[in-house]
């Protein structure tokens, strides 16, 4: 019998799910922007003079990192807007407000990117802080945009809480989600204070960079993956909730004090070396739990699913999270090693692998689930020949990018820091060493293959599930 047949239309989308589609569309668009600037930077490593005057490396990096944070956050929030009405069985409360703030955010992000591109920097005064660039690495957004982001998350939190209360029922997943979003919104404010004391400034800045990304995002991802697995494999709620509670306990139990691994050398008291070293060494534990969970579920269902690309991205998510965040993080988290490795390209290797694994994998899972439900008739299982090309190309490329950063980071750590003692000569020796210099070319190559993977992904998202009538 033919494998394709007409499937009836089952129900319309909730308004909240329609909004989620906008979230996903903008996320994919910003993802493209992020890749463009990553590609540009990879070339600037080879030819540092390229666009040096008009678009220097540091500006590119700001845009590369900022667009990444925004599109991943947008993708994750889109996932919540997608699943929330399904979980509560009703339309999201305050959906008009949610739509309004969404378009404010889209306009705001556009303005911020344009200012980054064409204004770039300003004098060291309050005007720059408010309207051009706040200056803290990774969270450079000017203060007006920061306030908009906090307002955005606050409205989002209101949507979730009000919908839960209106639906008159709360599940374990919703409970975890609500309290995680509280931390997500409140911790972001920590990156907005200006103090003349650099240690204090950095101390609070890490609340955003570490606690945000390594604690609240991980938990948000846990909730979203729980919903995704229930959808993809029909995993019982009791099972995913039990795993989620375990993961949340481990993430917060290790991650909050694991914050100490950023407090080793910034002028904070010495006890952080012990605290940070111990707790951050335990941080991979919840990630191991997530791998076991994903493998167990997928194995128990023999990879039989309603949506193949989503399931494969979910599996990539579990492994990527463990390898990128867990292993590559652990590689340099012990103070004895971090003493020599902090601030080298090992950090970039860890960052690329971890964000790709933990968050990109999740957002891709969510987007493929949404795409499946948009196409009529709904295709079960959702499949195409293109998604696997994008999947393999992007994974191979990110391994290549992170691998080249690992080798150059090792050269920096070993030659510049450990052997030659951070002198000017040591700097030159490590930067001219083949293990450093040659990696630029590899990275540039993998940046291109990643770009091709992205283009295939976009093509696949636009076409998958659109079948000719049999």
């Amino acid at each position: 019998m033919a494998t394709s047949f007409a499937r009836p239309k089952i129900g319309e989308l909730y308004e909240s799910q329609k909004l989620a589609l906008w979230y996903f569309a903008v996320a994919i668009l910003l993802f493209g922007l992020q890749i463009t600037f990553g590609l540009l930077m990879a070339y600037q490593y080879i030819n540092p003079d390229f666009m040096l005057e008009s678009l220097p490396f540091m500006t590119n990096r700001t845009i590369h990192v900022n667009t990444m944070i925004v599109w991943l956050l947008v993708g994750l929030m889109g996932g919540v807007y997608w699943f929330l009405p399904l979980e509560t069985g009703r339309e999201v409360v305050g959906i008009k407000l949610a739509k309004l703030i969404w378009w404010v955010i889209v306009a705001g992000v556009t303005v911020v990117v344009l200012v980054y591109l064409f204004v770039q920097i300003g004098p060291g005064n309050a005007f720059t802080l408010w309207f051009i660039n706040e200056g803290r690495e990774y969270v450079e957004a000017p203060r007006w945009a920061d306030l908009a982001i906090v307002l955005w998350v606050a409205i989002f939190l209101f949507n979730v809480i009000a919908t839960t209360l209106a639906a008159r029922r709360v599940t374990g997943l919703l409970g975890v989600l609500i309290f995680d979003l509280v931390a997500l919104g409140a911790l972001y404010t920590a990156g907005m204070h200006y103090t003349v004391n650099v240690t204090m400034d950095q101390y609070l800045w890490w609340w955003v960079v570490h606690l945000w990304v390594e604690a609240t995002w991980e938990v948000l991802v846990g909730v979203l993956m729980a919903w995704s697995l229930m959808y993809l494999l029909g995993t019982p709620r009791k099972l995913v909730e039990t795993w989620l509670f375990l993961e949340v306990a481990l993430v917060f139990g290790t991650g909050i004090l694991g914050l100490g691994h950023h407090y080793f050398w910034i002028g904070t008291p010495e006890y952080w070396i012990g605290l940070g070293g111990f707790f951050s060494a335990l941080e991979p534990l919840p990630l191991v739990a997530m791998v076991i969970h994903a493998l167990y579920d997928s194995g128990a269902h023999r990879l039989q699913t309603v949506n193949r690309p989503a399931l494969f991205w979910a599996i990539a998510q579990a492994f990527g999270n463990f390898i990128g965040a867990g292993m590559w993080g652990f590689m340099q988290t012990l103070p004895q090693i971090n003493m020599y490795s902090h601030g080298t390209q090992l950090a970039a290797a860890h960052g690329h692998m971890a964000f790709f694994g933990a968050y990109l994998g999740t957002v891709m899972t969510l987007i493929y689930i949404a795409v499946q439900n948009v196409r009529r008739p709904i295709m079960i299982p959702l499949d195409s020949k293109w998604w696997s090309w994008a999947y393999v190309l992007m994974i191979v490329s990110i391994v290549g990018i992170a691998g080249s950063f690992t080798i150059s980071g090792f050269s920096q750590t070993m030659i510049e820091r450990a052997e030659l003692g951070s002198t000017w000569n040591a700097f030159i020796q490590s930067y001219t060493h083949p293990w450093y210099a040659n990696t630029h070319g590899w990275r540039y190559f993998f940046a291109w293959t990643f770009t091709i993977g992205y283009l295939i992904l976009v093509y696949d998202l636009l076409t998958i599930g659109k079948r000719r009538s049999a």
Partner: protein
Amino acid sequence: MDINRVEVYLDNQDEPIAVLDQPPFVLELDPSKLEVGTHYLIAVVHYQDGSMDHHEYVFDVERKGAIYAGHVSRAPVTTPIEVRMVDRVEIESPVKPDFVRYGLLPLVLFLILAGTAAWLAVVGEKPVPGGVLAAGGKVEAPKAPAGGAGAAAATVDGKALYEKHCASCHQANGQGMPPTFPALAGNDRLADAEYVIDVVLHGKPGTAMPPFGNTLSDEEAAALISYIRTAWGNDYGPVTADEVARLR
């Protein structure tokens, strides 16, 4: 291919538990009416042209107290119908959210977290006794070095400029660190004044040598280049600010 009707059989019973004859082909199952354990569901699809096809579902039903949970645990690969389990966990025993716990507590926690960050930022501003901020909490701008920009026109110290801008690479003794940073002492290429001025002003693309055109005034560049061309036994003679200005 158009579907005529779908007959759904449960656990190999002879009679179908449902016959779906028009879209949407959605089957709602209530696990509380089923035995605890594993069940089989077979959907027999009749197509318009008389052909048939069947799909098998396996699912589990479990019971805890009065609460039932049922889940389609192994979905078939190609299915024309959607099986929805009525989730008795939430229907029979809805947990009503408590407004204080899920409404007010999050708000209070939000304010505590954001407030702690704000408070720490304020504490960070406070002068530490004996610290750099002790004098009224203000950081003094570093004093301009004696003989700064104002005195430049008269006597610019080429040696000081060399030590500030050049010595880190070319070394204080002019020996450099070949091959990356060439020695300046005894370097014949310094004989060509225009070449030297050009390299200092515009840098040397493709190498580590940066341009100093925006950093140095004509007088400073002239003093610096004169120093390079006459120090460490070099004898190539000084250059003037006018020569520098011409090549800018």
